[in-house]
């Protein structure tokens, strides 16, 4: 009997001690990431059956269990992977947003545009003044440099994206390796402990899964033996039991400057479809690149190409100070066409921009199936199918430059990708600015009627008519008819005359108002020595307000405004959604922690409880001892 009191006391002492150990462990790990509160699970020892009843044999600790809730933990991991994706996307977007921000209005693209057109107007006001012309050229240079520096910053951001992809991939590989290792360690340890759960190791593994999800959304499938299988993307396996697969960051087959994520299996790296990789930092960075970075770069590129192209077209219709027709004011950046490295044919495709106002900010993919070519606009998936070149889509004309195409060959066409980086001012000599119009009109003093001829305009589009500057005479043969003579006009006779109506030959248009008399003549001819003429400079200046882009719906500035507004709105949207997601994470975490987290007050109470239990158990032993002493003293 006495020994069993000792036994009970000892069992209680041991249980209290274990309780203290676990409470102490909880206190110690209160702030360890991923730690789950542990408790001892105690039960009574089997009672001893006697004739007078069942006598309890004290207490035993069955196991140390962790307050782990799979459902809440999963929810938290999902919320966090989402949040990490949004945070990463938002952080990247902020870079572009800040890049385009120009609160004082003097460093952005917008004032540079304004200065170019102000320069054109200054030239219009003083067409013969070289310093005005020089200042217009300098404004052009400044604008071009703004474009280039924006493009340069976008390049840096793209490099940053590549670095982050590499980092994420390497972290994912590390986590996968550690999880695989832990799968093994946990199984071994738990076997050795006869099935007792290895709580701390399991916490570590769950925490690794959590961290893995900070990089990429990973699906965990718990196996019957308790090990974790982990899948990402479209179901690519990352960890299967103790077997671990690797991811790799590889150059895109379409674009060597772009890293993509590949799954390595049996020595083969297969690129994982970008759209299937979501969640986590990697998901965020990939989404940023495909949704916003490319769009920003193409948007700026379209603006640069649109400006260069339309400005050039007007400039070519003018005449410079030397009396020559205007050349290019800007160098128009050319589209890029990249054959896939998997192509088996040797075809080379050339792309040319033929319609500046029809350009879109999208990239295109060209595919050949052996019989038909399919050209796909990548942002909305619109396609064109055709069998022969040349083919034009959205102002870009594609031709087969050389070689032959094999079935399955693919090309990436990026009309606007290099626009912002490659726009240049094509002329350095200010006298080459085509401020004048190439023609002028006149009426001799011998005319007797009241007819007045307008100064004349040059018809769009460039290039100008080759006979533009041929001298042409309009001779009135009656009050309502006239003859035309001059190279290129076909010398028509008896043309009927309406005052104020447009008369157009050789690429120019004039109007005659008033009432000419028979025998009156009007001349249209080259604008020789016309250095004081500013008609083309006025038209160049007026381009600013015209809707020259996006199919005639947007001016330069409004196209820029659209880019700003898209980026601003996206950043704003991400700010709001990432904040909402952060709140969701914090709520979910509060729930998860309310179940699994350590509360120090609670542990203090537990410490007191087990301390008291320990003291009480000591008292039981003391009592047994006293009883024993009483027995021993009987013999004295």
């Amino acid at each position, binding site marked *: 009997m006495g020994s069993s009191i000792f036994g009970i006391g000892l069992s209680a002492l041991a249980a209290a001690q274990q309780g203290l150990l676990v409470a102490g462990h909880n206190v110690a790990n209160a702030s360890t990431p991923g730690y789950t509160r542990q408790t001892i699970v105690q039960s009574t020892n089997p009672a001893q059956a006697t004739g007078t009843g069942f006598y309890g044999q004290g207490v035993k600790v069955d196991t140390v269990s962790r307050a782990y809730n799979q459902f809440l933990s999963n929810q938290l991991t999902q919320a966090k992977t989402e949040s990490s994706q949004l945070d990463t996307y938002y952080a990247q977007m902020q870079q572009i947003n800040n890049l385009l921000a120009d*609160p004082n209005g003097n460093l952005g693209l917008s004032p540079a545009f304004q200065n170019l057109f102000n320069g054109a*107007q200054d030239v219009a006001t003083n067409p013969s003044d070289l310093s005005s012309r020089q200042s217009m050229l300098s404004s052009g240079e400044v604008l071009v440099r703004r474009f280039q520096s924006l493009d340069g910053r976008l390049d840096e951001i793209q490099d940053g994206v590549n670095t982050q992809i590499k980092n994420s991939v390497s972290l994912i590989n590390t986590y996968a390796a550690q999880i695989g290792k832990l799968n093994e360690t946990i199984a071994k340890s738990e076997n050795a402990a006869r099935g007792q759960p290895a709580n701390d190791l399991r916490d570590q593994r769950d925490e690794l899964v959590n961290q893995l999800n900070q990089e990429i959304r990973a699906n965990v499938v718990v196996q019957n033996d308790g090990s974790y299988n982990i899948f990402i993307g479209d179901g690519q396996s990352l960890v299967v039991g103790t077997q671990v697969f690797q991811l790799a960051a590889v150059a895109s087959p379409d674009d060597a400057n772009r890293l993509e994520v590949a799954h390595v299996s049996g020595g083969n790296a297969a690129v994982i479809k970008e759209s299937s990789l979501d969640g986590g930092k990697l998901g965020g960075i990939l989404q940023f690149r495909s949704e916003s970075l490319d769009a920003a770069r193409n948007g700026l590129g379209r603006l640069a190409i649109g400006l260069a192209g339309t400005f050039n077209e007007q400039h070519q219709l003018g005449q410079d100070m030397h009396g020559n027709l205007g050349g290019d004011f800007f160098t128009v950046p050319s589209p890029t066409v990249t054959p896939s490295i998997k192509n088996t044919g040797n075809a080379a495709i050339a792309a040319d921009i033929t319609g500046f106002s029809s350009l879109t900010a999208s990239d295109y993919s060209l595919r050949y199936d052996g019989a038909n070519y399919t050209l796909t606009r990548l942002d909305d998936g619109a396609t064109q199918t055709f069998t022969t070149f040349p083919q034009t889509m959205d102002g870009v004309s594609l031709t087969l430059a050389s070689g032959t195409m094999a079935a399955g060959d693919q090309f990436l066409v990026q009309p606007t990708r290099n626009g912002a980086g490659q726009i240049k001012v094509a002329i350095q000599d200010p006298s080459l600015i085509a401020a004048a119009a190439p023609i002028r009109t006149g009426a001799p003093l011998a005319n007797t009627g009241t007819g007045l001829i307008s100064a004349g305009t040059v018809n769009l589009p460039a290039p100008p008519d080759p006979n533009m500057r041929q001298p042409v005479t309009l001779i009135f043969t009656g009050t309502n008819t006239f003859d035309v003579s001059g190279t290129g006009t076909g010398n028509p006779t008896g043309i009927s005359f309406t005052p104020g109506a447009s008369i157009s030959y050789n690429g120019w248009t004039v109007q005659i108002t008033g009432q000419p008399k028979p025998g009156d003549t009007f001349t249209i001819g080259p604008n020789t*020595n016309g250095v004081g003429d*500013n008609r083309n400079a006025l038209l160049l200046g007026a381009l600013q307000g015209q809707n020259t882009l996006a199919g005639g719906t947007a001016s330069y*500035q409004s196209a820029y405004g659209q880019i700003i507004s898209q980026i*601003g709105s996206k950043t704003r949207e991400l700010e709001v959604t990432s904040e909402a997601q952060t709140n969701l994470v914090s709520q979910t975490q509060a729930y998860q922690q309310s179940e*699994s987290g350590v509360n120090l*007050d609670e542990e203090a109470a537990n410490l007191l409880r087990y301390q008291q239990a320990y003291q009480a158990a000591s008292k039981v032993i003391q009592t047994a001892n006293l009883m024993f002493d009483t027995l021993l003293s009987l013999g004295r």
Partner: protein
Amino acid sequence: MRVSSNTSYELSLAALNRQQAAQVKNLEQISSGKRILTPAENPSSYVQALKVSQADAANTQYAANRQSAASSLSALEGTLGDVTQVIQNAQELAVYAGNGTLTDSGRAAIATQLRGNLDELMSLANRTDANGQYLFSGFQGSTKPFVDTGSGVQYFGDDGQRLVQASDSRQLAVNESGREVFERIPAAAGGYQSLFKTFSDMIGVLEAPVSTPADKTALADGLSSAQANLSNSLDSVLRVRSGVGTRMNEVDTLNDTGDDLGLQYKQQLSSLQDVDYAKAISDLTQQQTYLQATQQAFLKVQGLSLFDFMK
């Protein structure tokens, strides 16, 4: 609900962070004077502000254009005024030359005076602006418009008129072609006759000796057609001059409109971008109160621990 110690710590920290972020944002606004610092803060206002500042900059450019137009027009106006005087002077001489008491030598003296006037007229017609560009040569700014070729003064310019963008929708002509001012003048004998020819004809008439009755008739006819032509010239120059004056007035009107518009743009920009200091500072004070309260609550909550009572 159980609350884990971590949670209460993290939530308090998050609240502190949030409030500090709001405070920094507020400070940025106050120090920059701008409510919107990046497009994301209010995309539509930001783009609107871009549009307004573009319109404002264009308006400023039009003002510069108008200033240049005003100076070109006043140079033109001044020159036309001088031309008017020369013509009026010649008209007086023509009347005076009709006085029957004048001798050949008296008329010759008038002719000499007229030659001086003709030279002055030539120099006015070939006047250049500050950039060395001829006022009356049309588009051919560096071509001397009027040259005496031996067979009379000829025009080498053209009919071109330079326009200046004086406002969003208005272009103003800032020069006149020499042909319009000096050549397209209705002649007494029909057709057009240049002012220079009128002068040289008159000089010829005055220099011709008068002895026979036929000479007298020729003198009288010559002087009367000179007077008619001079009067037509004056009408023509005054017509051009009044056109120039009208345009100068229009520049003034456009300047007023432009100033008003500039003021409007600045106000719009200010309401789109600028920080409302009263509001920003009251927000800042409010945030400070919140932050202090959060800090004190944090200390109180974190200061409570059962461990403190375990002795």
